[in-house]
């Protein structure tokens, strides 16, 4: 159908669409078109590319996963074993060979030679050995004994402690306390008749110090 505007010119202009409006519509259309183009580029271009890259990487990761799982299982097993090994090492390394220590103590006492050699003539009434397993404890342990020296020369107690300090026995202990003692009953039926009683008290070195010392000795032996 053809529509014919029969209105006079002056009336026709009034009904004509405003140029500005047309321009605005056109601009709007253009703008919308550009936005749609941008959206399309993002969706089909950029997002597609990233998605494809992601799927490639995912495939690659999926391929690596069994190896990673194997590695993790191995690592877990290693940790289990290592923990046991280190616990065992901790238990065994903290041990003191009391066979060695008592043997060394007997050697020092025997080397005194008795009254005729005038070094010392020591014997003991007891021996109390205590090792503290807790590393947080203040003392690592101690060795205590009630000693006697068969002589009226009380300086022999100092000789004995000197010998102890210069023997391998002392390696695991801190230095003994200074000598002290008291004369006990005199028995003229026995030789020697005079006896001095003295306390023997030694503290164990802390485990780290002992281990360091042992390591140094081993190194020196090499």
């Amino acid at each position, binding site marked *: 159908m053809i529509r014919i505007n029969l209105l006079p010119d002056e009336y026709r202009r009034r009904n004509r*669409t405003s140029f500005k*409006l047309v321009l605005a*519509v056109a601009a*709007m259309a253009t*703008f*919308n078109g550009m*936005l749609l183009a*941008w959206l399309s580029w993002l969706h089909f271009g*950029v*997002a597609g590319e*990233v*998605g494809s*890259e*992601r799927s490639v*990487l995912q495939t690659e*990761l999926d391929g*690596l996963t069994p*190896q*990673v799982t*194997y*590695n993790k299982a*191995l*690592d877990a*097993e290693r940790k*289990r*074993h*290592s923990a*046991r090994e280190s*616990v*065992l*090492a*901790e*238990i*065994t390394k903290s*041990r003191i*060979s009391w*066979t*060695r220590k*008592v043997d060394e103590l*007997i*050697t020092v*006492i*025997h080397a005194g030679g*008795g009254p005729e050699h005038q070094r010392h003539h*020591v*014997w*003991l009434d*007891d*021996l109390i*050995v*205590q*090792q503290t*397993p*807790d590393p947080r404890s203040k003392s690592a342990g101690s060795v205590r004994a009630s000693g006697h020296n*068969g002589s009226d020369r009380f300086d022999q107690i100092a000789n004995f402690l000197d010998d102890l300090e210069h023997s391998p026995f002392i390696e695991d202990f801190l230095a003994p306390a200074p000598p002290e003692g008291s004369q006990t009953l005199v028995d*003229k*039926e026995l*030789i*020697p008749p005079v*006896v001095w009683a003295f306390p023997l008290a030694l503290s164990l070195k802390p485990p780290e110090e002992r281990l360091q010392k042992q390591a140094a000795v081993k190194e020196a032996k090499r």
Partner: protein
Amino acid sequence: MSRRWWIGLVGGGCLAAAGTGVLIYFAHGSIAEARAEVSDLQGRIQAARKQIAGTNDLEREVIVLRETEEAIKEILPDERDINNFVRDMRRFEDDASVRITALKKKPQEAANRKKTSEDFDKVAYQLTFDADAFQLLAFLDRLESHSRFMLVPSFKLSAASRRSVEEAGQAAHKVQMDVETYVYEPHAGAPPVKIDGYARKRELLLGEITRRRQALSVEAYSYGGPRGRRDPWVDPRVPVQSEESGLSVPEQQQIVDELVTLTRELLATRDRWLGAANVVDEMVARADLENLLAGLEENLRRVEGEGLIRYKVAQSRLQQEVVGPVAELRRKVAEQESGNGPSIEALRELHDTMVRHLASGEHDLALSACATFESRLDYVRGDPARETWVTKIRRRRDEAQLLSDFSRMKIDIRGVAIMEGRPPVILINGRALGEGDLVDNELMIRGIRAGEIEFVFRGVVLVRRF
């Protein structure tokens, strides 16, 4: 078109633009997310590759650890092995000759249980036993050098009293000892990972496995025995009269130790003799026994005769571990002879012993040796071979008796006067006597020379030098 229509169109356009803008915004967001995922995947892949790169080292480490696990099982007992641990104590008791009087399992709380790991449980025992210093050391040595890890965190020794040591001849100190071990019970976790070509890879790692096992092994001290040292928990003072012996306490103890060792050897030979499988073995063992018995008796006579052992402890031990068993064995040997008298080997040994005693001037010891056989010598009548030895023995006995009696005679020589052309004179027991004079009813002076005098005693010429 109406103006309204146009306005509607523009408004719609604006709305469409806004909508598209929103879509673009979300598209950007989703792209950013996707990129983050990509970045995350890249990171994960990189980390995975890095992780995988260490798989070979990890495999090796796990193989080494699995193999050292066997060493841990050897060092620490499992629950079943705790019974063996107790059996070991019994064995150590025998080996070290200690006397265990109590064995108590300490409760875990009291033992201050160490929470080391779920796989390790501390097991603590308290032992009470009697031992001397060297038995204690032997026991400790067996504990600490055992392939199973054992720890002695504490012990207490109370010395035996001087009187009890003197009576028993051996120290029985009271020892209370805590012994700990750790039971290894690995808790059920994930099963071991299957490693391809495990055996081959293990072969390649044998060196490292050995090194790690050695590092885990528990260091032990090599105890060398008493080595002639005295027990420091025994009062070493000796009674005043002990000075006569001239030997120190360790020297006296060493003599007794040697005699005890010989006695043990003798008793082992006796067992060999009694358990001989055939006549030849029996004869060989019997000869060895006679030889050892005669030698030991000779030593004992010498030790007792010279009064070498004066230290009470050593004396008691000598009596209990040497003199008693030797006398008992001599009695048994005599019983075995069942009226036939001593064997030819025994007679030969007796004769040789007497000769040695006489050569050393030990006449009384020679007589004492003969006295142990005297009552049985008559049984050999009718056996020419043995009779020959009995004759020789009796000759030696008479010789020893003569010398013993002579040595007991009081002969106090104060001086000799020898002058040319005159008979020599000697001053004996305050009397001036010459050759041919009697000192005693049985003792005559046969000759006087410078430095020696010849006597005739019971028809035998004897010389005394001065």
